[in-house]
């Protein structure tokens, strides 16, 4: 190890060393951009300089083998310049237009589709799932792969949509994918009360912290066969898993009852309408690896109903706001249940307090 000089608090390398010359030259002085075709953009500087971007999809989980191949492609076509997007796609940065086609051929040959720009469906922001996280109600990468296999025509541009469509996945209510503001959110849900291991609990967890962690106050201190522990009031538990996050002895994972819910109509941008949270569409679908057919089917169905009915520039949530939620449930055929009615802290703010109704 001595061969290396260990440093701390140095922060990330300065970005400037990674910027291609054309960017340094036109930094902050871009005039406009065009999407040449799905996945391929040109940004034109006030100087007239042109920067071409070839965007390809990625599973996000990448082997160093693949990253090295990307590096080789970058050298071959981009003078070594490459970036990733905020949705985990890869972007090759070119100045020589003639190199676009060969690059596309080669990267697609490697199995990485080009697309995801404009009103294409982009990559699914997602999380760890069974690959790395203890609290996951389902896998992440697997569900995403199964769904994207189905949606890929919308990524590559074979099929297109009225507006941007952002799909996100999170494997538990912690929502590391920040799915709460996505056009379509796929969310792993636990649906059974945590099982407490009373032997481990005193060793592993601070009881006050544990009690405080429950949003509904379902957890109470209790003495179980002499040892200090806690008990959970089943009726008050809505399976958020926060107790498990703070205390490993409250296992919430359950192979039989864990599943997946689907949420729609969120957005982040301030374009036209203000940012919106996603709303519940389907409360529960079973965990069905390796390809989660029920989930794939439901997501595809939503995309198709939206594509067939929304107006140009209308995000999914904006479309539903125009036609009304009753119509959304009618068009999709999804069942509206008591689960769709909010019953948490601000529930009353979501009740419909007007006589303005379609009949």
């Amino acid at each position, binding site marked *: 190890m001595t061969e290396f000089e260990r440093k701390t608090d140095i922060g990330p390398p300065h970005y400037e060393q990674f910027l291609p010359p054309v960017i340094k030259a036109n930094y902050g002085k871009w005039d406009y951009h065009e999407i040449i075709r799905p996945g391929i953009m040109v940004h034109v500087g006030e100087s007239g300089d042109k920067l071409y971007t070839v965007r390809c999809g990625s599973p996000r989980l990448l082997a160093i083998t693949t990253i090295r191949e990307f590096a080789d492609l970058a050298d071959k076509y981009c003078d070594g310049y490459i970036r990733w997007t905020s949705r985990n796609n890869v972007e090759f940065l070119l100045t020589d237009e003639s190199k676009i086609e060969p690059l596309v051929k080669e990267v697609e040959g490697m199995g990485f589709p080009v697309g995801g720009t404009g009103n294409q469906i982009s990559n699914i922001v997602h999380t760890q799932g069974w690959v790395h996280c203890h609290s996951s109600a389902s896998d992440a990468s697997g569900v995403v792969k199964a769904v994207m296999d189905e949606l890929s025509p919308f990524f590559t541009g074979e099929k297109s949509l009225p507006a941007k469509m952002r799909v996100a996945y999170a494997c538990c*209510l912690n*929502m590391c994918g920040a799915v*709460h503001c996505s056009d379509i959110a796929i*969310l792993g*849900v636990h*649906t059974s009360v945590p099982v407490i291991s009373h032997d481990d609990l005193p060793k592993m967890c601070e009881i006050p912290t544990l009690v405080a962690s429950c*949003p*509904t106050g379902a957890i109470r201190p209790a003495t179980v066969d002499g040892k200090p522990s806690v008990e959970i009031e089943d009726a008050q538990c*809505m*399976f*958020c898993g926060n107790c498990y996050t703070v205390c490993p002895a409250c296992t919430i994972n359950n192979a039989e*009852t864990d*599943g997946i*819910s689907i*949420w729609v109509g969120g957005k982040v941008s301030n374009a036209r309408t203000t940012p919106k*949270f*996603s*709303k*519940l*569409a*389907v*409360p*529960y*679908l*079973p965990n069905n690896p390796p390809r989660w057919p*029920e989930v794939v089917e*439901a997501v595809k*169905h939503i995309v198709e109903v939206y594509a067939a009915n929304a107006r140009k520039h209308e995000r999914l949530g904006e479309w539903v706001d*125009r*036609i*009304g*939620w*009753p119509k*959304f*449930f009618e068009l*999709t*055929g*999804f*069942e*509206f*249940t*008591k*689960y*769709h*009615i*909010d*019953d*948490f802290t601000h*529930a*009353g703010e*979501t*009740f*419909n*307090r*007007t*006589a*303005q*109704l*379609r*009949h």
Partner: protein
Amino acid sequence: MTEQRKTPLLDELEKGPWPSFVKEIKKEAHRPMANDVLGILERSYEEHISHWKHGGLVGVMGYGGGVIGRYCDLPEDFPHVKEFHTYRVNQPSAWFYTSDALRQLCDIWDKHGSGLTNMHGSTGDIVFLGGTTESLEPCFAELSHHGWDLGGSGSNMRTPSCCVGPARCEWACFDTLDACYNITQEFQDELHRPFFPYKYKFKFAGCPNDCVASIARADCSIIGTWKDDIRVDQNRVGEYAKDGVDIQAEICDLCPTSCMSWDGTTLDIDNSNCVKCMHCINVLHKALKPGTERGATVLVGSKAPIVGGALLSSVFVPFLEMEPPYEDLKELTEAIWDLWGEHGKGRERVGEFIQRVGLGNFLDEIGLEPVPEMVMHPRTNPYIFFEEELDEDEDEE
């Protein structure tokens, strides 16, 4: 008779164009009671504070409500308002009277009280302002003898009220006067004998203009609406346009769902997207009319701020036929009362109760199907209390 109290401050309120309540009190100031009201009110104006105390339980035999007890805190200075209770007399539907009926009420109040009234109280009652405990029974006997009854107060059903509706309005989608009368009669026991957790109010509005503000101040708000198409007389629309109404700007652009279009000659309405807001009908009232397939939307839960913050009523039944004897409305009401009556806390309005137990659970209990019309949008938080076999949700198509 005692000479009139000096009221230099109140006298200031006899000036000005708006009719003066001070003048009204003075009109009765030949009565000791009204004269003492002048005095005690002047005192409040001097001291910037009320001189009334909480009312104890006063009322008429067999009734738990209808009278608000009131005592002043300066009985020595103002002996005649030592006791100054108010009666709530149940008004006729939509506040219609004949001169004889009015005189009858005046004669009774002349004999038994201060001679001062509120026409009307905020809930809708005829309010007799200021009577003694002793006068309650004789006054009530005389009122009821002539066919008048008391309204509600305390934790019971309150006096229902309604808009003028079909009596004088072309937009009434159901008979507000009859529904109001019918419900009042049906629930006389609940009106007079408090055995609810708190008050429960009904208000009937014939259309979404809601001329009795039912959505803001009734635990149960019944608001008329229709199902079919708005009836359009294109010629009359044309006349409005000729008379200078900018149909595009004043009508189409203000429609909440933009479901109307105007090509200069015809007004086209996509009725499937009309939310029955009334605006176009309000402005073009000679040309447009509500449809003929009529009924009401039933909303529940509005109230003033205390304790949890003010609430507006929220949709329970998007569309209900409103034909006598209003069985569906009565059944729904009894189901709500049973549940709230059993599980509601003291002084917890039904709107607050619903939020505490959850609307979904509440609907389960009273046996009403959840429909998307009940919410502005489905839940955004993932805190779902899953219950039944989850498989039911799988076949979501």
